[in-house]
Structures are given as structure tokens and as C-alpha cells.
């Protein structure tokens, strides 16, 4: 157990410190020592990304540090993901995420995606400038229970509503919760377009996602 604890701490520390090479090494070492992939996710990656979110919220971390931690977490997940799939481990939820149609800004969306993945969710990232029908297709094909929409521009915010409408038209709206975020987006706007939640920051998005899938 002592060995396992040390290895778990190594991965946790590598992610919090944003060192992707150390994260890869720690993941490989832990797997070689017999740790189950799902245990690494739940005991190392999830707490590590929670800690990164906390450091961001209390302004010890900023965008560069978040990007580095996200990179380290993803490097670890690239190793763990196929192993998790093979074991049939159930994620905390399945989220389809993307920046809405017309909007190419993806740094904020990428951070939220990383935080969600680090939070134990299976993330289906459709990228930027995503048409409503692509969200609909992905929700149906991947049996998602959460949709996360991002927009940075006032001119593309209406695409959030168009996407929600498309989910309704496809008969999927009751099946998924929809959360929205991005610089010009507010709780008021989220309410107005019929979203289920608004995330003010990447850390808040994870807490919101957990709440929505538990509801």
C-alpha cells in the first residue's frame, strides 16, 4: 500500500504541477505496480484536477498553469482511456462538449473539457464551430447525458439556443442536461434559452456537471 500511495502521489503531483512527462511516467509506473486504471482516475486524476480548479479559483493558478495541468492529465488519460474502455468502467457521466456554430474560440472550452475529463467524465469534444446537428448526432450516437456549450462572441451566443432547440426537435432534450458558459454568457442568459445550468469558470463547470448528472 505504501508503494501504491507513493505512486498515486507522484501522478497527483505531476498533474498539479503541470509536468506531462512526469505524469506519463507516474501512470506507467502505477500500472506496472498493479494499480487499476479506474483507481488511478478516481484517486489521483480527479483529486488532482479538483486541486487545479481550486488553485485557479483562488488565483494561485492562471490560464497557463491550467493549460499545463490539462496537458499532463490528458497525457495520463491517453494511456488510461483504452484500459478503462476495456474494463467497462462507467464514467461519472458522458458529456458532449463544443464551441457553438460560428465561434472558433476554444481555449476556454478546452479547459472545461480537460477539467471534466479530469473530473471522471467521458468527454466527447466536438471542437469549435460546431453545428447544432453535430451535437444532436453525437448525443444520440454516444448516449450522452450532458451537453456543454461554449461561446465567446455576442454574435454566436444565439447558436446556443439553436442547439438546444435542435436537441428538442430531435426528441433528445429530456435525455440530456445542457450547461453553457463563455465570457458573455450569464445565468440570466442560460435561463432565457432553457439551459439547465451556467458555469462561471472551468472549476465551477465540473461541480455543475456533477450536480446536473446527479439530479
Amino acid at each position, binding site marked *: 500500500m505504501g508503494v501504491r500511495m507513493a505512486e498515486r502521489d507522484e501522478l497527483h503531483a505531476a498533474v498539479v504541477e*503541470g509536468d506531462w512527462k512526469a505524469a506519463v511516467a507516474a501512470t506507467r509506473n502505477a500500472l506496472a505496480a498493479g494499480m487499476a486504471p479506474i483507481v488511478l482516475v478516481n484517486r489521483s486524476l480527479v483529486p488532482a484536477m479538483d486541486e487545479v480548479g481550486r488553485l*485557479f479559483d483562488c*488565483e494561485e493558478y*492562471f*490560464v*497557463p*498553469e491550467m*493549460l*499545463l495541468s490539462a*496537458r499532463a492529465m490528458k497525457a495520463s488519460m491517453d494511456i488510461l482511456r483504452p484500459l478503462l474502455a476495456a474494463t467497462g468502467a462507467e464514467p461519472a457521466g458522458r458529456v458532449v462538449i463544443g464551441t457553438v*456554430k*460560428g*465561434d*472558433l*474560440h476554444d*481555449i476556454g472550452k*478546452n479547459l472545461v473539457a480537460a477539467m471534466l475529463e479530469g473530473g471522471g467524465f467521458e468527454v466527447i469534444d466536438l471542437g469549435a*464551430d460546431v453545428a447544432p446537428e453535430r451535437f444532436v448526432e453525437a448525443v444520440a450516437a454516444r448516449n450522452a447525458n450532458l451537453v456543454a456549450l461554449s461561446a465567446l*462572441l*455576442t*454574435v*454566436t451566443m444565439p*447558436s446556443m439556443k439553436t442547439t438546444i432547440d435542435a436537441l428538442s426537435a430531435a426528441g433528445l432534450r429530456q435525455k440530456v442536461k445542457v450547461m453553457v458558459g463563455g*465570457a*458573455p454568457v*450569464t445565468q440570466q442568459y442560460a435561463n432565457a434559452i432553457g439551459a439547465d445550468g451556467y458555469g*462561471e*469558470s472551468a472549476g465551477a463547470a465540473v461541480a455543475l456537471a456533477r450536480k446536473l448528472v446527479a439530479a
Partner: protein
Amino acid sequence: MHVTCVAALRDYYGLPAHPVKVHEPGQMLGLVEDDLRRAMGIDVIGVFPRKTKFGFPNTGWKEWNFRGLNVLVPADFRTATRPDGDILIYPQGDETAEPSGRMPVGSAFFDAIIRQPEIDEEKLDPADNLEEFGALSEEDLDHIERSARAACVSGWAVAAGFGGTGLGDVALVPGTSLKKPKGIRDVAEWYISTRTRRGYIHAVFERQCEIGIQNLARIHARIGDAVDCVYLCGTDFGTQNSAFCSVPTFRELWLPFYQRLTGWVHANTTWKCFKHSCGSVERFFESFIEAGFDIINPVQCSAAGMEPAALKSKYGRRLVFWGGGVDTQKTLPFGTPQEVREEVLRRCEIFAPGGGFVFNAIHNLQAGTPVENIVAMLDAVQEFNGGAHG
């Protein structure tokens, strides 16, 4: 101001109908001509660089249909429309090069296409991130001199942006003017580099400062004090609720270089130094002042910690607020004219007393902003000033 807003205002004020010039194609900014400037009651005129963000000169105007609106674009504004309707734009107007900007359907701006060559840490050379920051040509200087002299005799205050001194501005990092950008061109990678490759960033800023000051000196030799203020840097340090870096990082990475730039300006000219930074940046204001900036824009009061009265009371004697006039994320595009009026009057009451305030919306007026709201904004400023425009 977005070209669609300029066109709508020309129409609203009954000015002669003609296609509006898009003088900055990235954000699709429309040129405000003197007749519209008078109608709107604007007191400032701009001096812009010879070339656009996509590396072609603002000359040889031709018509272009921008989704139903006839506008004028420079001769080398060359685009291709993809089958899905997205519009691609080419650097330096060279259609044989990889496009460097893209306007998706549903957008109204050209965003940079990230063209990031594979990064080999051993071979990273700061010179690669400096290709676009060379010495101004005689043609560039002629253009600036002509524009500045014309602006100077207009009677309006002159705000100039000469380019070249934006340190790490992520709008410029992708190198949209270049046919084959080298170095660090991916925006996320650049942010990461501010943490992991500080020596590289220092070297880029160091050289950019040297070139920038040489250019400023050559410009000043041509135009003297014909301009009132100079837009030195548009690097955003704030996000909606936080910042892109800590204050200590700002002070290590940017402050010394800003001091060099503003130090030269203050020692050699009468120009005031203008700093743009969106977002929650109150935490940087003391450092901005120490960096030698006189003017802060756009004063995003909707961001965390940017409460107008507190800003005015704490910094009003040491910084000019060029902005903060009305919110462009919510009130102006989505509010009612009455809400716009009330917000504008409130902001003027806070920022104007004692001077040090240039009314400006918080950032560019975005596409899709109702013209009635823009007019309500302008009328409210007029109402506050207690008289007619101008």
C-alpha cells in the same frame, strides 16, 4: 466599430449612401468618415498603420459583398468561400499561400487560423517570432506622416496606432500577416510559454522593444507631436473573472519592457501612452501606472473587480479611463435603448468628474448591435454633456 454598425449609422443619420470601407479586416472594422464622426459627436480621429492584420496595404479599394452588405475592402483582400460557406482570407493577398484567417458562417469576424509548425525545443529561435516586427519601410512612414498630418489639422484629438509594440498580444501571435509563420504561433502554446519558456519570451520582447523604439523614433522624426496619444499594446491580461497571469509574472515578464517603450515616448514626445487590456485587470493598475501608461482601455466594468466608482476613486487621478461607457456584451447588443441610456448616464456621472475620462463603449461595437441602442448611447452622452454633439 463593426462595418455593419457603421453602415447602419450612416443610414440612420441620413448620410450619403456609399459602401463603407473595412479598414481592419480581422474584426471587420468600418471606417468612420468625417461626416459620420460629426453626426455621432466623436471628438477623436485615428491614425492607423499602412497594412492590415493580414499583411496587405489598405489601398486600392474594391467592392465586396459581405453577406448582403456591399462594403469596400483593400485590393489585396483576397478570400475563398468553402463549400460550407466559411470564408478564408489569405496573408498578403497571396492565394497560393495557406489562408491565415477564417470567418465561419454565423460569425462576423476573421479569426486567425493557427499554423503552428512542429516545435523543436532545441531549435526554437526568438527571431522566428519577430519576423513581422521589422523596421518600418519608407512607404510605411510616408503613410503614417500623411495620415497624422491630415488628422492633426482636423481639430479632433488624434489617437494613433503604429503597430509593432504589442508585446505578446494573442491577436497577433498567430502571425496572420505571414505566409509561413515560424516560432510559437499557437495561442495556447504561447500562454504556456509565458510559464515554461520565459527566456524565449524575454528575448522576443527585448528585440521587439529595440525595433519598436527605433520605429517610434523614425515616426516621431516625421510627425513630431502631431498625434496626442499612441496605442502601444493590446495584450489582454484579464479574463471575465480572473487574469491570464499573476501580478508578479506581469512585473517580471512585461513591466520592464513597457517601461522602456513608455520611457522613450515620454522622454522624446508629448504623446500619451495608451494601454488596452480587456477583462478583470484592476489588480494590474498599479503596475500599469508604474509601467508608464497614461490611458487604460476598455475598462471592462462587467468583469470581476472592475466596479466603476471604485476604479475612479482609486485611480482616477493617475489614469485616464478611455472606455467603461457602456457594456458591449449585454446592455448594448441585447438591452433596450432606455437601459443603454441609463447605463451611459450612470457611467458618465462616475467617470467624468474631474476629467480623465474619454467616453467609449467597452470594446468595439459588435456586429448585430441594434442601431437604436448605438444612437441611445450617443444621445445619452450628448444629454450628459448638456448640449449638442461636438
